[in-house]
């Protein structure tokens, strides 16, 4: 299935990834607290903590949302994808601390949450106050921005709770991916939450510029990456009368690498390895990662996202793993490669074309 990959246990890469992630989060919160206290001595530390955790979650969401399109634009960012789900779960917990605070007996660190800070000064229970305190639903500028945050937090909770491979395997990657695209809605809700919340009372131009730059960045890279993908999809090749499609030449594919082409709307990865050519679906069974951007390692096509592996001639993961992807008939005419437009069932053996 993968190169040194274990689906459940921690491994060295995950530990390094998470240690770096949590160190960065801790550094951000510490610096935020120190700088804010340095700027205003009359600020209440509890209010600063709420902003520190809230902004940490928002910044981390920007990082998370940047990884996908950046890795589409350049393979240098693929390593960041490896454990992106832990980033998402960390982001959810930062957002949760922003709301309810942190007071666990096992942790020396204690913080106040926005729920207590803004909603525990009346007769009502803070949670009730949160939902009934502001009912200006028909007014744009007075809209209860807290509800936008609640909606985003609910989506982030759902995503964190279903982030494990257990759900990925049982829901199947296309459904899991579709559900986890809810993060785009969560991002939109959180931008509204910040614009109608923090930016209303905090008029510091630095905050306004930071939110604006973050918005332009996220929208920009997603639209650039998305339009590139769409353009590639539109360049779909069609089959000749014999059902085969000319996809290019042998010389243009580096050894142990692939050329990705779009045939009838879906992508096919055409690999060159050991003097042979094989074509398989470009979609990894794990998270639908782009197999054609990976390479052949130890005789197996290796997904660049999480290292899932498939044998090029049959599209099956080596034993004991059971993942399978569709395969395609391949034919060579001189240097030119032809791939049959209709795929075989996942895991079907297809004789590779031998390079003369």
């Amino acid at each position: 299935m993968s190169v040194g990959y274990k689906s459940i246990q921690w491994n060295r890469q995950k530990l390094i990834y998470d240690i770096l992630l949590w160190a960065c989060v801790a550094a951000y919160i510490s610096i935020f607290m120190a700088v804010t206290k340095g700027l205003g001595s009359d600020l209440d530390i509890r209010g600063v903590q709420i902003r520190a955790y809230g902004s940490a979650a928002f910044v981390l969401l920007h990082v998370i949302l940047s990884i996908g399109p950046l890795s589409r634009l350049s393979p240098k960012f693929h390593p960041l994808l490896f454990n992106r789900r832990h980033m998402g779960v960390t982001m959810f917990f930062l957002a949760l601390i922003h709301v309810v605070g942190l007071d666990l007996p096992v942790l020396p660190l204690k913080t106040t949450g926005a729920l207590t800070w803004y909603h525990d000064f009346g007769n009502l229970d803070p949670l009730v106050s949160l939902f009934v305190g502001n009912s200006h639903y028909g007014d744009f500028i007075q809209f209860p921005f807290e509800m936008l945050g609640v909606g985003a937090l609910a989506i982030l909770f759902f995503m964190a709770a279903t982030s494990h491979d257990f759900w990925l395997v049982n829901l199947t990657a296309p459904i899991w991916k579709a559900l986890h695209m809810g993060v785009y809605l969560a991002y939109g809700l959180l931008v509204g939450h910040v614009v109608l919340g923090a930016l209303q009372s905090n008029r510091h131009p630095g905050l306004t510029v930071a939110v604006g730059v973050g918005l332009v960045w996220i929208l920009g890279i997603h639209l650039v990456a998305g339009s590139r993908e769409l353009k590639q999809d539109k360049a779909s090749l069609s089959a000749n009368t014999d059902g085969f499609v000319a996809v290019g030449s042998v010389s243009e594919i580096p050894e142990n690498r692939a050329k990705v082409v779009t045939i009838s709307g879906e992508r096919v990865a055409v690999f060159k390895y050991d003097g042979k050519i094989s074509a398989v679906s470009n979609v990894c069974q794990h998270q639908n990662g782009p197999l054609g951007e990976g390479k052949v390692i130890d005789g197996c096509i290796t997904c660049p996202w999480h290292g899932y592996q498939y044998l090029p001639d049959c599209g099956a993961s080596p034993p004991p793993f059971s993942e399978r992807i569709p395969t395609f008939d391949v034919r060579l005419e001189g240097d030119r490669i032809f791939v049959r437009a209709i795929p075989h069932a996942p895991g079907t053996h297809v004789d590779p074309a031998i390079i003369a």
Partner: protein
Amino acid sequence: MILSRRQVHFYSFMGLGVLLPIVFIAGLALRPQYDLKTTDNATELFAQAGFAGEAEGNAISSDRFTVARVTVAAETLRLSDGTVVLDLTPAKSLKVPDVLVYWDAGSQVPEAIADEALLLGNLTSATTRRFAIPTEVQGQNGQLVFYSQAQGQVVAAAPFAAEMTQ
């Protein structure tokens, strides 16, 4: 991602690309000028609202009773200016809305607030609230009556002995 997901991604961001800049610009253009209170003013407002401040006095007595199944700690103090105050601290938020605290000369739980009862103030959340005890009440036996203004009924009453204020 498969083709349909790529399309969902692109068109989702097309939508967000139109909506979010409008929200951002409108949110900045329409934001009102709020008259924010300074810390000093806030402290003053909190004191006026009866939240116990940092001023301490000499403890007179203390007691503990139950209001709507929540334990409430009571402590009386004599401040440096001679004022006698009562600090009430619920162990957790009261599940009864708009609770007003009265001093009443009786000893039985009343069905309604008597005309002679003295309003001390309102009790909210789990925060310590401070009530000034009028001089005419000090040294007298009576009771504290907890009345829910929203429900229009007495929710609890607790003895308030003369020793608490002298």
